[in-house]
């Protein structure tokens, strides 16, 4: 597709994609169909390893014209070698409304504005949580979403977490998107931030011109990511409760990035779980990686984890989701698979 054609399609993406019919109804593109035109994408939270992988995968597509990576501080080393004509990095404080708004006003976007936003910037580390972190988590989501809607962005993707789900002995064998949320007052503040941010997104899901999509990924294993599950796997050794072996279906950095690509490139909005291809007990995943866990009685798990952290043997926080190592959490991502993965063939081959 030449640039002119791309421009034409891009215009189509912003203005007339969902024209009101004469009856007043809004014509919505079918879920799972390819978004036309070339993509100009803002990725907030560029320091995250999943962002690095996502940017790398996106740049393999000719239809991705320009990516703006946004983070705090200098550009991560893993991103500096990308083609500067297709990738740019800017530092910004996402909890500051003005700074967020300015991201959409760069010269590069004057003629052809950003059409997609991926919000990955979430401070999930429970250590040192305070009101500033809360403001960052929730206000960043609010400002980024508001700015996206004001500037005519056609797709807004928020990467949530599976930690929003209530975990316990009453759990379903597969947790669908409408499952009970962890609204317990004693749940970690970061979880509440994620739920707050999700609600902001869900409030705008009926926007006529912007497809707001929230992805709740299962724990990510491997790739050096800072997910709870991966931090557990990287512990020396992982400490688990005696007599419990939860079922999980973790994903990988590459698979999650691919799911984000699909969410960006195809039409569709709403709330979706995304998970790995296989399901099994936690102990089997450890066993397959040659990791031998240390088992302690359940009531002493948190204390053992605390000692481990003091000794530098782990970065995993058992307090973050204390039930996670006791009860199963298997995400049902069949809706995402049907709407997006089934249509992966529509993307242009890398």
């Amino acid at each position, binding site marked *: 597709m030449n640039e002119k054609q791309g421009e034409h399609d891009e215009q189509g993406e912003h203005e007339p994609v969902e024209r009101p019919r004469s009856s007043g109804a809004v014509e919505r593109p079918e879920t799972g169909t390819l978004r036309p035109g070339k993509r100009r994408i803002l990725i907030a939270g560029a320091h995250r390893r999943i962002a690095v992988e996502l940017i790398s995968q996106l740049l393999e597509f000719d239809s991705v014209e320009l990516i703006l990576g946004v983070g705090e501080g200098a550009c991560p080393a893993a991103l500096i070698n990308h083609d500067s004509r297709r990738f740019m990095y800017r530092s910004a404080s996402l909890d500051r409304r003005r700074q967020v708004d300015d991201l959409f006003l760069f010269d590069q976007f004057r003629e052809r504005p950003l059409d997609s936003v991926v919000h990955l910037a979430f401070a999930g580390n429970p250590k040192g949580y305070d009101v500033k972190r809360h403001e960052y988590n929730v206000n960043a989501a609010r400002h980024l979403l508001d700015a996206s809607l004001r500037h005519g962005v056609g797709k807004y993707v928020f990467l949530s977490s599976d930690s929003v789900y209530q975990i*316990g*002995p*009453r*759990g*379903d*064998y*597969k947790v*669908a998107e409408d499952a009970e949320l962890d609204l317990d007052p004693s749940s970690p503040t970061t979880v509440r931030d994620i739920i707050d941010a999700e609600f902001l997104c869900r409030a705008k899901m009926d926007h006529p011109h912007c497809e707001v999509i929230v992805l709740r990924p299962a724990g990510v294993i491997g790739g050096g990511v800072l997910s709870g599950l991966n931090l557990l796997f990287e512990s020396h050794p992982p400490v688990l*409760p*005696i*007599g*419990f*072996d939860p*079922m999980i*279906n973790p994903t990988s950095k590459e698979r999650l990035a691919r799911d984000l690509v699909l969410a960006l490139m195809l039409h569709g909005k709403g709330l979706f779980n995304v998970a790995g*291809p*296989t*399901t*099994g*007990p936690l102990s*089997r*995943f450890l066993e*397959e990686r040659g990791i031998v866990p240390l088992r302690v009685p*359940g009531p002493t798990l948190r204390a053992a984890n605390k000692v481990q952290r003091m000794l530098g043997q782990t970065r995993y926080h058992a307090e973050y989701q204390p039930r996670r190592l006791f*009860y*199963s959490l*298997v995400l049902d991502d069949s809706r995402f698979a049907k709407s997006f993965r089934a249509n992966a063939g529509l993307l242009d081959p890398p």
Partner: protein
Amino acid sequence: MRLRPDLARALLPERERVRIESYGLDDAGHGTDVFGTSTEGIGSAYAVAYWLHRYYFRVVSAGHENVPRDTAAVVVGNHSGLLPWDALMITTDVFRHTDPPRLVRFMVDFFVYRMPFLGVLFRSLGQVSGTRRNFDGLIDEGHLVGIFPEGAEALGKPVDKRYELHAFSHGHVELAARHGVPVVPFGVVGAEEQHTVITNLEPLARALDLPFIPITRTFPWFGPLGLLPKPVRYYIHYGEPLHIDPAALQSLAVREHEVARVRDAVYEQIHLGLEVRRRAEGDPVR
């Protein structure tokens, strides 16, 4: 299917080992199905349960032709015996007498999954916590789902309530109607005599969030050994499948009628079992 060879060889004849190996478990990638049922779990448990079924409880059963061979169904019956040996014997009995072997997956009370080892054990044997979505998932995949509509409280029935059914919950009828699957009633005779429950410490049970804490002739006086069941012979009978009126989803009156119909069918199987036992053994000594 992988088996613990030592346990399987010691407790199972060759033909039963072959039956276990022929059981098709839908592997979700790591040796278990999506419900957490493991190949080794079923194999090892069947090795023990087969022995209990044949030599300890010496189960006499009939009506297996009423259990669907390859389609989903809800298997519903009476519950008793302090510990759920009846569920184990039903599962083993159906597994032994169906070809290809079928596993009855009981909906289990949540408290089981709070307990170390027990929850993992139940899950690996195909027994899942009793949530609506778990039921839906099992039925959608064509499994036999076992339900005790009396609830876990029925396990602690005192002596004077033997073979009296508690009130049935409505869930099994509603779910069967929603999925359009039949209800297979069964009656278990024998389990009610395996313990002599004198009373139930209800306040303590409530405080510990347990369905009951019984006082029996042997428990708690002999510690955990007091929970071992007497080797009472079981008589299990399966009734003809009942097709639930879909109107049970629209009308409370219809639903109550259908629940009563299932309850009556379970009663019928219990009475049949009692009659067969009376003919075989005479009246039991209590």
